C-alpha cells in the first residue's frame, strides 16, 4: 500500500473539502499525520497554495488561507500537530 505523506493528505483534504474540513480533520487522520514521514516535494508548488499560519500556539489559533479567503480557527489539536511537524532548528 502506498504510504500517505502529510503533504499529500493536507493537499487532498484541502482540495476535496476545503479549509474548514482540513481544520476539523478527524482523529483517524490525525493518527496518520502523527506518523507523517519526511520526504522531498513530489512536484512544484500549486499556483494557489493552501497555507496555514499558526498565530498563537498557546491559544491554539491557526489561520488557513485558500484562494482569496482566510479563516482563523481555534483548534488546539491542529495547532499541536503543525507545531510538532514544524522543522526544528537542528533539522
Amino acid at each position, binding site marked *: 500500500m502506498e504510504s500517505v505523506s502529510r503533504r499529500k493528505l493536507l493537499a487532498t483534504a484541502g482540495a476535496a473539502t476545503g479549509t474548514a474540513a482540513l481544520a476539523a480533520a478527524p482523529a483517524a487522520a490525525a493518527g496518520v499525520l502523527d506518523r507523517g514521514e519526511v520526504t522531498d*516535494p513530489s512536484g*512544484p*508548488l*500549486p*499556483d*494557489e*497554495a*493552501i*497555507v496555514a*499560519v499558526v498565530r498563537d500556539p498557546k491559544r491554539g489559533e491557526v489561520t488557513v*488561507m*485558500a*484562494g*482569496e*479567503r*482566510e479563516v482563523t480557527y481555534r483548534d488546539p489539536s491542529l495547532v499541536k500537530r503543525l507545531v510538532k511537524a514544524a522543522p526544528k532548528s537542528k533539522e
Partner: protein
Amino acid sequence: MSSHREAPEISQDPVADSTDTYAFVSPDKPDTVTIITNYIPLEDPPGGPNFFEFGDDVLYSIYIDNDADGQPEIEYRFRFRTKLRNPETFLYNTGPITSIHSKNWNRRQFYDVSRIHYGKHNGHRPKPKVLGRDLPCPPCNIGPRSTPNYASLAGAAIRKLGDGERVFAGQRNEGFYVDLGSIFDLADLRPFQNLHLIATQPTMAVDATATLNVHTIAIQVPIKRLTRDRSVPSDPMSHKAVLGIWGAASRRKTRLIDKASGKVAESGPWVQVSRLANPLFNEVIVPVGEKDSWNALPPSADKRFLKHVEHPELAKLLPVLYPGVFPHLAALKAKRTDLVAILLTGLPRGVVAGFQNHTGKTLADMLRLNVAIPPNTSNPSPLGLIGNDPAGFPNGRRVFDDVVTIELRAIAGATYPLVQPSYQPDPAASQVTQGITPGPDRYQPTFPYLGTPHDGYSTGVS
C-alpha cells in the same frame, strides 16, 4: 514625492507603489471625469532588457466615494497578465515593433478591467462586472529602432469599454515635477536657500523627474456613472457634485517561492499595500513609523492621523531651518484647520466664493473633485485654487498642477487665513516656489493627458 517611495515597505515594491493620483473633469470631454493612478516611481527609460511593466500579482484599484462617508461606492479593478512569445531569447523585442500586435514584440502585457458597485453594507460581497478582457498595454518606449512610431502604438492601446468608459494602461511621461534633491536636502526651498540655517548660494531649480517615465492606469468615465444619483450636477454648491477619489494597490496575503522553478504561488485575501489621494500626504504629513500602516488603511480610518495634519512637522521645521523668515508661522500654535479642510474634509461653502468640495465630517484623505466646476481650458493656473483657478488642485488634481508649491505654501501658512482671517501669513509663504516649468512634451491635450514617454535610446543624449 509626491508619493514616490514614500514609505519604507512600499519603497521595496515599485510595481505596487502608487506615485500619483489625478482626477479632473476632462478638458476636451467635459461630460466625463478622468482618473489617473501612476505606479513604478522614477523609471529610468533605458532600463532594459526587462523593461518596466505592471505587476501580474498586483490588484490595482481606483475608488470613488460619492456619498461622503470615506468609503467607496464604486471600484474599478485592473489585473495584468504578461505573455511571452519566445522564451528562448533574452530580448524584449526581436525587431521593430510597428504595431501593438507585432510578432517582433516578445514580452507583452494585457489586462482586464472590472467595476464593482458597493451597496449598503449588508454583508454580501458584490460581484465585479467585467468591462474589458485582454486589453493590450503598449510596449515601453525603447528607441527609434525598436519603437519607431511610439505615439501610434500608445494610441492603439486606448480602448473604449461597453459602458462608456475609456481606458489606457502603460508607460507615460512622468507628469509630476519636483526638485527632489533640493527639498530632501534639509528642506532647501528656493529661492530662500541663502537664508537656510546651512546657507548656500541661490541656484536654479533642478527638475529631477524631467527625464523619467511612469506606468499609468487611466480611465475616463461619464460623470453620470459616478455621481450618487446618476446626475450631471451643474450647481457647484450641491453636495452631489463632489466625488472622493483615491487609488490603491493590493497583494495577496502570502507568497511562496518554489525552489526548483523559481515561480511564485500565492494564497489568501488581497491586502492593500499602497494608496494615494492627496499628493504628499503620506510622504510629508505622516511620520515614518506610521507610513506603512497608513498605506494599509482605508481613507475612512484617517482620523488617527488627524494630529499630524493639525500640527504638521514641516510647519514646525520651517522657522527653525529659515531663521527669521517665517516668524508668523513660528508663532502659530493653533490647530491647522485649514490643512484639515484641504486634505481631510474638503473646503465647505463660504470659504472660497463660489466653491466647495466638502464631504462632511468624515476625516478621509481623498482627492475631492467638484464635477460641477467646468474645466479651465483658456487660462489654467498650475497653482489651482490658490491661483484663482477652481478647476485645479485641491479641486481634484490635474496633471500639470504644481502641487509641491501649493502644498508648501499651504503648510507655510498661506492658506490659514481661509479659516482665521485675522492671521497674517509671512510674506515668504506666498513666495515659496519650485521654480520649475515643466516642458511642453510632458503632457498632451487628450486622453490619457500624460505625454509620450521618453525613449531609452535618446535619454541622456544632449
